[in-house]
């Protein structure tokens, strides 16, 4: 899972997210993978989509400034408002590009505040209280997502796992984005940058 998180973080950075948001992407993808949900695949879809909108927050309805709403930016904004989300009257995020990527942020808010929260969209439903439940039939949106207080006793329990087997196409795609964070190599940088040039063999 450390490797999953690191790859997701670097890929998000390579795709143009700030380091702070890339860190959020890494955590979110790790969380999804650790409950057997396709976090890496959904991040790959999100990154392939290109630029998405930042939320305009007007009361209980969040809309994108332009295009579909970015679930990573919106998720981080939700997490930054943890108390308001946990104890408020619920709200709707319009046209979220990949709703599944929002889910880890809501799970984190529920855990942090000890509250019961639900995330619902037409093709997915999750509930977080003492346990974590939910299912999603579609990885991609856009879809309107509702975040509200509540439980979901009828939803299936999420299955924790320690390993995530990523499809090769996903890991290749994320690795290609991650690659953009690496500086091209030159012989000069190889020698000076790592500090070699002195014999290390005696």
């Amino acid at each position: 899972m450390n490797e999953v998180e690191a790859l997701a973080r670097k890929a998000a950075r390579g795709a143009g997210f700030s380091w702070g948001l890339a860190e959020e992407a890494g955590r979110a993808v790790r969380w999804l993978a650790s409950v057997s949900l396709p976090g890496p695949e959904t991040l790959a879809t999100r990154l392939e989509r290109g630029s998405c909108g930042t939320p305009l927050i007007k009361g209980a309805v969040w809309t994108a400034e332009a295009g579909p709403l970015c679930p990573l930016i919106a998720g981080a904004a939700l997490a930054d408002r943890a108390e308001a989300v946990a104890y408020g009257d619920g709200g709707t995020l319009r046209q979220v590009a990949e709703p599944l990527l929002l889910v880890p942020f809501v799970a984190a808010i529920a855990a942090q505040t000890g509250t019961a929260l639900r995330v619902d969209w037409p093709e997915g439903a999750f509930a977080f209280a003492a346990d974590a439940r939910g299912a999603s039939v579609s990885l991609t949106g856009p879809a309107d997502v509702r975040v509200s207080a509540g439980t979901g006793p009828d939803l299936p329990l999420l299955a924790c796992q320690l390993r995530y087997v990523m499809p090769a196409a996903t890991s290749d795609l994320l690795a290609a984005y991650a690659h953009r964070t690496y500086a091209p190599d030159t012989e000069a940088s190889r020698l000076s940058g790592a500090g070699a040039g002195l014999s290390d063999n005696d």
Partner: protein
Amino acid sequence: MQHEATQSPGIAPRDPATVMQLARMGSFHQCRLSFMRQLLRRFKSENWRFEVRLFEIDANGVGRAVYTAHGPQNSYSLVAFAHDLPPEMRSDRVIATAWDATFTLFDGIPDAADLDRLAQNVPLQEAGRVSERELSLARANRSVRLWDHVVSRLATGQQPDAEKIRDVGYLMRTTAVYGSGKFGAADREATCNRPEFKAPFQVEMLHVYLIRAFVMDLVEFMARQRGPETAVPIDPALRRKFGIGNSTGLGMAPFLLNHPALLHGWINARETALARVRSLPSVRSDEADSLRSLVRRAHRNAEEWQSAHPAQIAKLTALRADLAALDAHLQTADLTTDAPWDRLWHWAEGTLGLEGQEQLVSLLLEPYGHLVDDLGPGMAADEAAQWRIDGAMSVQRLRAITQEVYGWALDTDWTNPAADARVWYVSEAKLEPRLGERHAEPIAPYEQPLCPGRDAARMYADLCNFDEATVAAFTLRHPEHRHIVRRAQIAAALPYAEIRDNTISAKLLPIDMLRAKLSFFGACHFDPRSDRWVRINMYKHAPFPAELGQTDADDWTLPPLGAGH
């Protein structure tokens, strides 16, 4: 705990602005809270048992071995592969592809199928793949000059030359020890709830401890191959003088910046320990004598400590002078009443250099295991606990935190090219961190977030022009500051989390960061080979597994005061 009841109002731990300076961090020494020390104390107190389960090495020194450590609940096995490496392939660089020996630490006792699987992968290191049954992966190269000397001496019935052992200090040096989830190995989260792995880096320290035992057995085995009739084992007292070397490069330096909560855990434990000792209202005469003896042993250690690096030679000269001055002072100072250790500390701050001051921190803790050892397990950190940004915090409060934690950075002129001369980046070729010259190479677009001071100054400028009230509004408007907002909030809660110094200045010495980290491992004899990589020695003077039962498992890091070396 008895001491605590008699303590005067406690002395506060040192100011983070004093402690978290790179020059001071680059003068840290191992102490009794170091991770090797914690591990050996546990072996002793829990009666760990060690056995060589397999030693299949041929006359050329090629083969495999299994060394198993049995704790109260779990067993762990070093699986070692010894190779016959042509000299031209021997390199400590991370880009090497072959080594004299390769290792993994197996969770439990491996069966034949495990060993065959590992034989296919461990010798390849990064190019192979291990599983969640493996906890870490490592490799080592011989010190060719010492190895050949020891084998030929032992083969002819002679002991190796003590001077030569002193000059090198080890028969093999590890060039990497990879833990936690690297190359398929188990994540730390999978084992961190076991008591033996609660403290940081215990997997890696166990791994290296078993490597040392294997290497000493291997060198004696090779001597017997060469001189079956004449070979002798190494004299036990001489054997102890061999540690395991390690070559650590720039790749490790970002660790301290990437794990702020953990860094706080380490430094806070040591500073809390120092404050507890300084707070003692009085000191027994045997404790005072103990410190006098420790200072002399530390002086001997400093005499044995070799380096060819000009900066380290200067530091060693200063350290030896500091220890001589400290020794002289201790002969006449009143060390028994009126908070003697606190008075000694104030004397040291006014008299000694950074090397001497930080050595004294370590020495002051030595007689007080009962007062400070309980801090050891708490040096691990739940990094997730402080990770979430508190968006409800006011912008005004974040400004105040920035002034408090990064005041030095707000006072820095970042338009001066020397202030931001360096760039931390990751190279395409080997995916390892490197340090480049911002104003000479086109690498700034690839900069890693390892310059919190500069980033905090940029954030502060935007905070001062921001007209909304909350941090949540600020991070939404300024996603580029999200990383440093998180760091600032962590540092506000955990004061030793942040290096309060410039990590990208033209004057940066990455070896300062390496030494700080390695001192917490318990390493000694830091020998920088440039400004960005360092050789160290691990477990020098430590008892071997078979000796743990009969000896003090905690009084080994400083050489004894007896005759000779």
